[in-house]
């Protein structure tokens, strides 16, 4: 059996919004193995992004444990988490989140600024990542000069440039047209199959989930057992 890279136990996230007590995630238990391509599906507000944010240590759980690549995230401070995230996790956002004043190459270079690589090496790595996502001819373009699909591919290049173990993607095709969405999903599948990246994809698009090797559903904050879908879900 392959290594477990993500393991959660009784993971719960609660918060107060406008005086209402909201349970965003309740006792979620999931194991993701190295090389998996897992799609987390569910309706809007079901808690799938919350689970992804907790796994990326972008948020702290109310209770429960998360172990990612052998590190127990609960015990790490902010600085350690920032370093850990830079080294092991690539994150892809729905709205790309590129820095508008930096070129494609500079955007991709950003995470490498936190490594010990020299400027020339960083640029070389960033250019290689952009070539890998098919944007080798767009290095000097600013985000506003790119299409949505190209922007998302730059974002993926930025996520993989540090050669992380895990790629966490939050609705990466949510803002794209069908053709661009397909290109992005194919790219993620390629990174999973050919480069061995573990991918966790949050989506509510069944088509997107077809690219995954495993699909887990979340409904009303509960991670449903493997193979179970929410009621009324096609």
């Amino acid at each position, binding site marked *: 059996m392959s290594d477990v890279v993500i393991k959660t136990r009784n993971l719960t996230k609660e918060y107060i919004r406008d005086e209402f007590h909201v349970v965003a995630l309740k006792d979620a238990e999931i194991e993701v193995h190295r090389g998996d391509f897992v799609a987390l599906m569910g309706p809007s507000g079901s808690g799938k992004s919350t689970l992804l*944010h907790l796994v*990326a240590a*972008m*948020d702290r759980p109310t209770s429960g444990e998360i172990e990612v690549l052998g590190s127990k995230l609960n015990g790490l401070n*902010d*600085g350690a988490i*920032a*370093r850990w*995230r*830079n*080294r092991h996790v690539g*994150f892809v*956002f729905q*709205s790309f*989140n590129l*820095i*508008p*004043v*930096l070129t494609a190459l*500079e955007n991709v270079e*950003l*995470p490498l*600024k*936190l490594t010990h690589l020299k400027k020339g090496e960083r640029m070389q790595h960033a250019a290689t990542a952009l070539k890998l996502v098919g944007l080798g001819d767009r290095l000097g373009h600013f985000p506003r000069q790119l299409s949505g699909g190209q922007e998302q591919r730059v974002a993926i290049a*930025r996520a993989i440039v540090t050669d992380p173990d895990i790629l966490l993607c939050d609705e990466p095709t949510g803002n794209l047209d069908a053709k661009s969405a397909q290109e992005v999903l194919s790219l993620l599948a390629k990174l999973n199959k050919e480069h061995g990246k573990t991918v966790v994809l949050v989506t509510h698009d069944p088509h997107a989930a077809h690219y995954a090797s495993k699909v887990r559903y979340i409904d009303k904050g509960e991670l449903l057992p493997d193979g179970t879908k929410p009621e009324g879900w096609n």
Partner: protein
Amino acid sequence: MAIPLSYNVRNLAVRKTTTVMTALGIALTVAVLLAAFSLVEGLRTTFEGSGHPLNVLLTRKGSDSELSSNFPRSVFNDLKFKQGIAKNANGEPLASLEMVTVIMLSSEEFPEGANVNVRGVTPTGIEIREDCRLTSGRWFTPGRREVTVGSSVAKRYPTAHLGGKLKFGRGEWDVVGVYDSVQAARNSEMMVDLNQAAGDFERSEVLSSALIRATDEVARQALINDLEFDTRLNVKARTEKEYYALQTSSGDLVKYLGTFVAVIMAVGSCFAAMNTMYAAVARRSKEIGTLRVLGFSKVSIMLSFLIESLLLSILGGLLGILLVMPLNGITTGIGNFVTFSEVAFKLRVSPEIMMRGMIFALFMGAFGGLLPAFSAARKQILTALRQI
């Protein structure tokens, strides 16, 4: 490693209008401060460069200036043969009894008139001021109502030109020459014959001061000690340089006033910078969240926004220096609180002053940027990412 500087520079360039307006606010504040400093610096250069190191100025004890000093002729006669006083080629002591008074002259700048020092001297007084060289005309003739004016006086007062006539004392005085000295304070005076002036102003026996030349530095100090401790004479002795240096205080009021206005303006500029930076933090909330997700620490985020504020203030500082540069070298006059007369000097925007202006601007940037930078660093990742 830090967030790249190009990120800050380009963000400043993207919001051009806000950047320029905030930088202009800082620039005006810096310009006000530098204008006040350039005036004080000009005065300092004028006074500190004046006075011969071996000259000793004597005034009556208790008088801070020649103008308020009553110096009896008899005292001068008692001291002029003291040991340590240098002698001229004829073997006469280089000691000059002098009378200083002020007259009013009108200029374009001050049509209602400004006070100008008139110094009555003997030929020894001219000899002892070997730095004063005629640029046109000649020295006054003893016993005549003739005046030789300093170059600043000739420039600033149209009536004091060569060949002109000045009315003071008991009649009209002919301007017969113009002198110039590297010791700038001397150029704001005019020189006349001591006895003619003393007669006109009815001060034959009680004059103002004496200027003596010591043979060397050791003798100078011995002379000062000797004269100070001679209770019979009742004189205050100090080096001529020391006397002029004291007059730099004439610029203190302008310096304090300028600094006060600049500090008040600086508070406003700090708020302007703060406002700009808060707006930048709010607008770039998503970018802050993204940078945190990429692995940049809270400290990196804080430093990045602080650096951006400092860059803004550097731009403001440079603009402020550019605004004040045209003042460099402009000749102006200021009332000297010691001599009660106007002293002409050049405003000086020295590199040191520019540096002070830049440091002042950086302080404004740092104070203005600190709180927004803190707020950027304290943002929770998810909260930052959700803000539009």
